[in-house]
Every structure is written in C-alpha cells, then in structure tokens.
C-alpha cells in the first residue's frame, strides 16, 4: 500500500479554463518566438534532429543556440510523458503514487539550504521581579554539515505528515568536495529515512555512483526501475528561457537512465520573469514544457514531474519573496497548468521571508501551506522548516510544520453527512431535550476516541505563556531519541566497499563498534 497523502476533492482553482488555455497558447508561442536560448550543444543537437529550428548565436565566448520548439514536439512529448509517476521507498509502504489528474497531495521537505539554524533556550530574569525567570528561544545560524543532514532525515522519518524527503541542507564539511558530495548526501539521506529520497546532483560524474548505491539497496537494476527509491531535481532551465550547459547535461543523462526527474524552473516575477501574473505563468509554463520536451526526446516515457517554483521579487532586495501572497498565486496557477497536461506537479509552499521561527514565520508559511495544498499539487516541496527565502533550514520549525499539516489534512477529510449520521443526529436531539442538563456531552466520548475529532494544538502551553518552541523542542528531542531503520548492515558494507567517496563516519555499524 502506498502512502495516502491527502486527496483534495474539489481542488481550489484560481484561473479559469479559458485562462489555462490562454497560458498554454502563450507558452507555445514563446517556445517559437523568441524560443529557448540553449547553452548545451547536446540539447541543441537533439532538438535540431527532432525538427526544431536551431540557430547558432554564440554571444561572447560561449557557444549558444537559439532553439525554436514547434508545437508538435511539445504535444508529442506531453503524449509520451507518463501521467502516473511512482516514487519508491526503502519501506514500500512509503511509496508515492502520483497521478496527474488526481489532486492527491504529498508533503515533502527540502530544499537545499546553506544555513542550519540551531536553537537553545537560555534563561532570563525579569528586571522588575527577579523571582520571575523565563526561557526564551535563541536561534543561531551556522553552515550545514553531513551530520545535520542525517539528523534532519532522522527526524523527518518520524514526522507523521511528511511523505517524502528532499535534502534540507547543503553539506559543507571540510572533507566534502565536489567529487564526494553527491554520494554522501544521498547515503546520509537514504540511511536515515525509509521514505522516498529526492535530490539534485552536484556533479554529473557522481550520477552512476549514486544510482549504483540505490541498486545495491533495492537489489539490482530491475528492482530499482520497479522501486525507484531515489529521484532527481534538475534546474536545466535558467529564467528567462535558457537551457543551462551543465545541468542540461545532467538532465539528459538522468533521462537516459529512466529514473524519475523533476523538470524545475524558478523564475522570479519582476527580474527574471514579467512582474504580472500572466507573464510569469506563461514563461514558467514555456520553460517547463521545453524541459519536458527535451526529456521525452532523449528517452520517451521518462517519468517527469512538472516542477514549478515561481516566486515574486522582494522590492527592497530583489531577492526571492516566498512569503509574498503572489508566490502562492503563481504556484496555484502552475498546479492547474500541470493538471491541464495531466502531469504530476512538483509545487512549492511553506517557505517564509523571515529569518527565524516566530509569529511572522508562522503566518507566512501557514498561508501558503493551506492555500497551495487546497489546489491539489501532487508533490508539495519546501514545506518543512525553511526560512529566510529558502536559505535557512530549522529542524524545530519542521516539527512545528508537521503540526500545521496535521491540521490541514484533518480539515481536508471528507464531510460525514449521510443518512446514518442524520439518523443519529435526530435520535440524539430527541434524547437530549428530555434530559435536565440538555447537553450533548455524553455523545462526545465515542467520537473523541474514534479519531473523528481534531486534536488540540500539540504545542499549547499551560497558563498564559506561549510555550510553542519549548514543547516543539521536546517533541524534536523525542524524535531524535527514537531509532530509525538504517540500511541493513550487509548492504551498508557492500555500499562502503563499492561506492567511492563515502565518509567512514557515516557507517553507523562501524561507528558503533568503535
């Protein structure tokens, strides 16, 4: 049985069917005029041999081609792209089945941040009343490490609502290099969670090592195709409308291996995309369609996710504003576009602009978590623990976000209004008006224990003081103390023997022996 996620019946639609068609046609027109600037020779050749008009433009010293992608290539690609994508997992019960037409939402962590936020609770004494002492959370940023990544995957394994794992932090240890980063980040993730693991690739040279590691875990080539426990994200398109040289190579190689891949684009309205909604959505749609078309030309049937990370620019810094209201609007529009193409969507919500957990963070993230979920994307990433416009990850915040998603999932349960419930209501009302107290309290108990009632906010303190951070921290410590199912010792041994570059300290079995 795969994970259930949450099925959103009657998903929220922001744009009309007519507007969806307008965006679709605008994107097709963009792909022909101006077309895509391609900095990758291999991609230009593939497009050229498939009938696209490819012209060498070579701005400056760089080789480049202008690729005009005809509608037929796009439509053919949309035909061959699978409408259902399966993402496997070490524990088969954590498999994700995503159907492009079914608004079943899976909640996913990510994305890779450079900064890890620690939390501590120092005590302070009240000046006017020295007998009063309070503990206040203090957040300290630092560079992320592979140990942090292990810790994050460990906690995410225990977060009830979290369906899949995208690495949350960039590993920046001194002994991590471009040549060993990929194998270590995949191993650290896979060894600490039995959920699906998705990541980007730092070096194409590491692709086969990563794939071989996954094969060793599941038992072979065929087994990995059946149960793809790993998948990849590639930003092959840089906005506006440019195929990037190196990531496009990576994308092509992953497609050749037939593993699931996200075709992701992240334009910023106001800088790398038009500021108006119609503009950014038409452009991102063109960019994602261009990527999907390339992937299907490389290997028809490659499982692709329509990856959308559109954001609005902050006008004070021109940085990404994930907390802006428009960012949620753009994401919902993209969910609709993906559903129009019947492709599973990789969407974005839950990131805030503020740098630390707190009131602003809660408001910004919950706003997008609720709204984007209601639109029914299949793979909702960035949803746990991200702060400061996607550059900071806080594990404590991820634990708090899990509580948010429990509330959202509860809200999306189906209403129980049927003949049975109406009959029960009529019986109860007749019984209650006969009693002296005229209260329905006696009927609560059975419902309360059946799981039909939502639970109180799990981090609610006693008395007047807000204890959310302390209680969430207690929960986080409980998760850290709770073991996870690591990769079997025999398989781990094979991985360390066969996959070069793995840090010995990641071998939990060797560490325990020492």
């Amino acid at each position, binding site marked *: 049985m795969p994970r259930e996620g949450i099925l959103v019946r009657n998903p929220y639609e922001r744009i009309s069917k007519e507007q969806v068609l307008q965006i679709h046609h605008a994107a097709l027109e963009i792909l022909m005029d101006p077309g895509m600037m391609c900095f990758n020779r291999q991609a230009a050749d593939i497009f050229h041999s498939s009938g696209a008009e490819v012209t060498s433009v070579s701005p400056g010293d760089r080789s480049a081609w202008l690729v005009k992608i005809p509608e037929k290539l796009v439509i053919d690609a949309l035909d061959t792209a699978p409408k259902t994508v399966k993402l496997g997992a070490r524990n088969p019960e954590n498999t994700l089945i995503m159907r492009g037409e079914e608004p079943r939402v899976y909640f996913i962590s990510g994305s890779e941040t450079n900064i890890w936020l620690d939390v501590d609770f120092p005590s302070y004494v009240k000046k006017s009343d020295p007998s009063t002492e309070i503990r206040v959370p203090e957040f300290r940023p630092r560079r992320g490490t592979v140990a942090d990544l292990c810790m994050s995957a460990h906690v995410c394994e225990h977060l009830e609502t979290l369906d899949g794992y995208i690495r949350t932090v960039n590993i920046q240890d001194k002994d991590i290099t471009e040549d060993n980063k990929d194998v270590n980040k995949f191993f650290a993730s896979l060894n600490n969670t039995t959920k699906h693991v998705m990541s980007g690739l730092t070096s194409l040279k590491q692709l086969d090592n990563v794939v071989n590691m996954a094969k060793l875990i599941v038992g072979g080539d065929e087994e990995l195709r059946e149960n793809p426990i790993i998948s990849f994200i590639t930003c092959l398109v840089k906005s506006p409308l440019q195929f990037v040289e190196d990531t496009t190579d990576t994308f092509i190689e992953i497609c050749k291996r037939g593993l699931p891949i996200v075709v992701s684009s992240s334009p910023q309205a106001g800088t790398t995309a038009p500021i108006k909604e119609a503009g950014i959505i038409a452009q991102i749609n063109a960019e994602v369609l261009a990527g999907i078309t390339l992937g299907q030309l490389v290997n028809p049937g490659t499982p692709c996710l329509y990856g959308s990370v559109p954001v609005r620019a902050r006008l004070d810094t021109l940085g990404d504003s994930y907390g802006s209201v428009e960012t949620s609007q753009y994401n919902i529009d993209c969910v609709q576009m993906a559903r129009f193409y019947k492709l599973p969507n990789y969407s974005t919500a839950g990131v805030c602009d503020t740098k630390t957990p707190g009131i602003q963070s809660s408001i910004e993230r919950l706003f997008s978590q609720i709204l984007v979920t209601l639109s029914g994307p299949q793979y909702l990433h960035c949803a746990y623990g991200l702060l400061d416009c996607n550059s900071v990850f806080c594990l404590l915040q991820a634990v708090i976000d899990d509580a948010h998603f429990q509330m959202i999932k509860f809200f999306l349960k189906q209403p129980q209004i049927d003949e049975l419930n109406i009959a029960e209501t009529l019986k109860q009302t007749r019984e209650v008006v006969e009693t002296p*107290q005229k209260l329905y*309290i006696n009927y*609560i108990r059975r419902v309360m224990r059946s799981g039909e009632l939502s639970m109180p906010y799990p981090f609610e303190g006693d008395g007047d003081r807000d204890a959310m951070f302390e209680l969430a921290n207690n929960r986080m410590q409980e998760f850290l103390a709770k073991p996870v199912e690591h990769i079997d010792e025999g398989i781990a041994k094979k991985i360390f023997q066969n996959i070069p570059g793995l840090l010995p300290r990641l071998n939990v079995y060797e560490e325990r022996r020492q």
Partner: protein
Amino acid sequence: MSEDIIAALKENVIQGRQNKDDEGIEEDMAGTPGVLELTQAALEKNIPLEDIITQGLTAGMQVVGEKFSTKEYYIPDMLASAQAVGAAMDILKPHLESSNVETKGKFAIVTVKGDIHDIGKNIVAILLKGAGYEVVDLGIDIPTEKIVEYVREEKPGYLGLSALLTTTMVAMGEIVEALKKNGLRDKVKVLIGGAAVSNEYAQEIGADAYCVDGFEAVRVLDGFQESRT
C-alpha cells in the same frame, strides 16, 4: 463476591458507564452491568454503604481525576464518570439518610436573575454530584428573593451562583446582601463562578470563594469539608 462487585463498581466509574447500555471506553463492555446495576447489586448483598462509596465510587473517581490530570481523560470522560456516580448517589440517598454515614452536604446551584446561560452551571452540578455532594439545581434566571427563600427553608450548606454576563453578575452582590439582611449569611458558604466574574469580584461582594471551573468547585468544597473536620 463483595470484593468483585466493589472492584467492578470502581472500574465502571472509571469507564464512565452509568448503566448496562453505556459503551464505556474499553471494547465489549456494553451489556455488562454498569454503575447503577452494580450499586443495586451491592445494596442487595448488604455491602456496607461506606465501602460502596469509598472503595467503589470515590476510588473510581480518584482514578478518573488522575487520568484527567495526565490528559488521558478529557472533560466528557470526567462528566460521564461523575454522572454515573451521581446516579448511584441517588440510589444510595435513602439508605444514607437512614444510616449514620455522614454525607458531604447539600449544594444549591443557580444562574442568577437576568441570565439564562447554564452550560457551566450544569457541568459544575454534575461534577459536584459525582464528588458526593447532594446537588439541587434551582434553575436559570432566578430572582434573588426566591434564592433567599430557598436558603431559609432548605438550609443548604453551600450556594453556588453563576453568571456569564457583566450585566447580570451584579445580582450576585445583591444576593449576598439579601442573605445578610435576612440573617442567613453565616449559615451558607457562597461560591461564585462564570465568565464575567473573578476572584477580585468575589472579594468585592463578600462571597466565600470564586471557582474558575467545576473542578475547582470540587476542590474548594472539599477544602471546606476538611476545615470543618
């Protein structure tokens, strides 16, 4: 046999099962005797009243209280148990009156004039009855003179006044004054509760205590019991 009945009584109080039709919390309990049937059976077996109350009903409520404080139980559980105990006390009442077993006393509760809100009042009544007090509910929107008359005639040891509204809470002060004028103030402990009132207000009008909820009402009354002994 007697121990079995007392143990079952305690367990059914914990389960909040008033009678055999109640489901309780554990599965497969529906159809087995509840607190009412077991109390009846205990009387038929001539089990001492004191044992029925202390080892069965009160011991069960104590466990319920512990489960409530650890958040295993919620207020609906507490009320179900209290209602079951209250119903058992109704059965035991004539037997208690003809015996020498000391009762906790009579508690009259009322929503004051001008106010019809009674959820809180009803919950307090259930909890106090479950705690072994004889509870008389005088109703809602009751005029001051009627309350004073009741105190004079029925001599309850405790009077609970409830008001939700700031516009109606003033009646509480009037009641305390009226009790004084009629020479009844020292005959009855006056407790006040409800969203509009506070500890400060209780002191201002000369009430004996303010109770934030039904649980505190039980604690306050039990405190009065201890100071009496």
